[in-house]
């Protein structure tokens, strides 16, 4: 049994099929890149996997548990973490408080009305931040961080729930080139260390070909190629999709 098994995933919007029959599998320790031109259905696919959208048909199984039909909160509790294309953190809280909030949520302590939240799981939060290189900035407000640092905080927040599967939507968008490679190197080492499975979309081909263990190419809602980077690069169908057909 694979960590993640997706089969026959379908979703339409007002009669237009955005995702049609997408199937793939993902194992622990893998970094799978999902690429394709604009409108290929990448974001829809992502939102189907974490429950933000409901699939019309098909199944998504995490370690054998069916995820289709569950709301994002439940999917997250079952072990699917996620980072967003435009970072989503809590800007009025400090970096440590951001991670502490996730830890509190994870352990169902968020309804507490009395004991100050700052006293919960502080060391654990700082340890996670140290792991992504943000320990020194633990007490700065998230709202003033540089964009690359925000991405790291988001990664720490995603790791705080100890997920089995991490979904990363354009993890390096909006970052400086050297930061991109650093972040992906960090992600790759976390994958090895924690036995994570990572699925990510990305438009930076250096990142995709430098770090993905496998690549999945989508076009018009369908998988048109899947395999190791070199095989995908050589695939004529992929070339046609990316360089366009004659008008």
């Amino acid at each position: 049994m694979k960590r993640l098994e997706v089969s026959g995933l379908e979703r339409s919007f007002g009669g237009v099929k955005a995702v049609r029959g997408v199937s793939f599998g993902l194992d622990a320790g893998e970094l799978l890149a999902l690429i394709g031109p604009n409108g290929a259905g990448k974001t829809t696919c992502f939102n189907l996997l974490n429950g933000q959208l409901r699939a019309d048909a098909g199944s998504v199984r995490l370690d054998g548990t069916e995820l289709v039909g569950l709301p994002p909160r439940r999917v997250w509790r079952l072990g699917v973490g996620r980072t967003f294309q435009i970072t989503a953190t809590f800007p009025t809280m400090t970096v440590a408080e951001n991670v502490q909030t996730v830890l509190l949520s994870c352990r169902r302590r968020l309804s507490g009305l009395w004991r100050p939240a700052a006293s919960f799981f502080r060391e654990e939060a700082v340890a996670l931040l140290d792991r992504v290189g943000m320990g020194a900035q633990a007490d700065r407000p998230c709202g003033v961080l540089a964009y690359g640092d925000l991405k790291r905080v988001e990664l720490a927040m995603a790791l705080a729930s100890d997920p089995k599967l991490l979904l990363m939507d354009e993890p390096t968008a909006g970052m400086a080139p050297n930061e991109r490679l650093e972040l992906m190197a960090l992600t790759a080492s976390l994958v090895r260390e924690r036995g994570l499975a990572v699925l990510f979309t990305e438009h930076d081909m250096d990142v995709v070909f430098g770090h993905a263990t496998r690549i999945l190419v989508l076009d018009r809602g369908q998988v048109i190629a899947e395999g190791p980077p070199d095989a995908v690069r050589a695939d004529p169908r992929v070339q046609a999709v990316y360089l366009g057909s004659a008008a």
Partner: protein
Amino acid sequence: MSFYLVQFLSGLATAATLFLVSSGLTIVFGVTRIVNFAHGSFYMLGAYIGWSLAERIGSTPLGFWGGVLAAALAAGVLGAVMEVLLLRRLYRSPELFQLLATFGVVLVVQDVASWIWGPEDLLGRRAPGLRGSVEILDQVFPLYDLVLIALGPLVLAGLWLMFHRTRWGTLIRAATQDREMTAALGVEPGRLFTGVLFLGSALAGLGGALQVPREAINLGMDMGIVVEAFVVVVVGGMGSLMGAFVASLLIGQLQAFGILVFPEITLVLVFLFMAVVLVLRPYGLLGRAEEAPPTAASPGPPLSASTGIAAWAPLLLLALLALVPLFAGEYALIVLTELVILALFAASLHLLIGLGGLVSFGHAAYFGLGAYGAALLATSWAAPMPLALAGAPLLGGLGALIAGWFCVRRSGLYFAMLTLAFAQIAWSVTFQWYGVTGGDNGILGVWPDPWASGKTAFYLLTLGLCGGALFLLRRVAFAPFGYALRAGRDSPLRAEAVGIDVRRTQWFAFTLAGSAAGLAGGLYAFSKGSVFPTLMSVPTSVDALVMVLMGGVQTLAGPVVGAALFHLLRTEIMSLTDLWRLILGLVIIGLVLAFPKGVVGFARDLVQRGRAA
């Protein structure tokens, strides 16, 4: 049978007026995305100006109708002036500031109108040639109302032609759908907005001027109509003209026939109808989903628990306040008692706005529920004061629990409108349920038990209870629950993605804020010895918003400081002049334009800038 027909016709006449006013409101909202509280003021000004003109030239049909038109145009011009001087600076502000600024205009207009036309009701001249009634199957019906009934569809047709047959109308429709794209095609937004405010305000003025022969003109017309127009616009779908027409017809009939079935709670029916429509059809009957939801208040720096001496400041303040009776007189104690109560009221609203990003325009409902609960327990049930005071937060909390279930389903402007609607329900129940609440006469004789009847004793009791409640609210802000609430405000997307049930968190916060406001209300009832429906009215809700805004949304001390500033200012100004509303209105407008972060936030920025330099 004929009785029902006449009832139906009178529903149509109500609908015609409602449509005139709400069409203007919906057009203005569609293009500017501002919910204009002052719309009711233009209706009232139309009525007053129409009255003055009718007195002078209204004896002939030409003079009368000319006067009506001139009043509408005058209201339109005033609306355009408001756009140029005020709204233009606020298009990018959070909706809280937009709503408050237009409410500031409401206050200013009220005092100006009172100054020009006096506080008494004015009875207008009947329309020449339309004074009589017609007999419809053995029932009489006023002729003038028949004209009104015809006017509704006529105005709809006129607006339809303007929107579909003129370039200006086409641009308005385009901008209603996509402002940015319209501007990118070379259409200047500023001029379009001024024109839209002119049209919308003129429609309101027309609606007002047409009331002159029908009802007494008074200073309360503005809030009455604007709240009903809100309901029509929300039910019909914000920005939809046809929606406003359909909703006007439905609500006109609901009022006409509701009064036969439930004479005591017709107003409740209307707001319940709106709540049900919003839950079933979130964007109204004919509305479309918003592409970009309105923004919440801009987030500030993190809340930081004070350290060192500052951490003891609240306790020190409490001790100082407890010592005040040793040297202060009775009057000072009365003012201080009210101040402490208002501080809790403001802090409870701040829990919603500052931590939850939930701008409630009806927080007075829970303050009022607490006050009425305590008053009823103390008088009708002859309960001892401690029991009555315990009932206050329970009733406030229960009201908030029920209303909150509906309200947190929507965010931004719709949340504000829903909270307003529930506050109006609470207000209309106390206003109309004469047998229990005494209606307009309120409940008198709500006095503390003998042991607390001295000014000093009651002050200390208030200080103890409010101080305790404020301390609790502060703990909550720094507790995990406060984090969950702030997380939902900062990024609902991320909060849901890390397992936080944002809606439930907000629902609970709404209930908590409602009980704190209820406690404040209960104490208020005993401090004043009486309660009146105005405790739940929109102006009371706005008072609380102004306190929060004055103190600054982003600090926990803000609402307390804001309540103190507000109350002292009000006490001081009211002893000097009758124009309190005018001054408050100008203060609100000034605050919104000058200090979007509030006074404390502004001061802290100054300090931080000073440190950085």
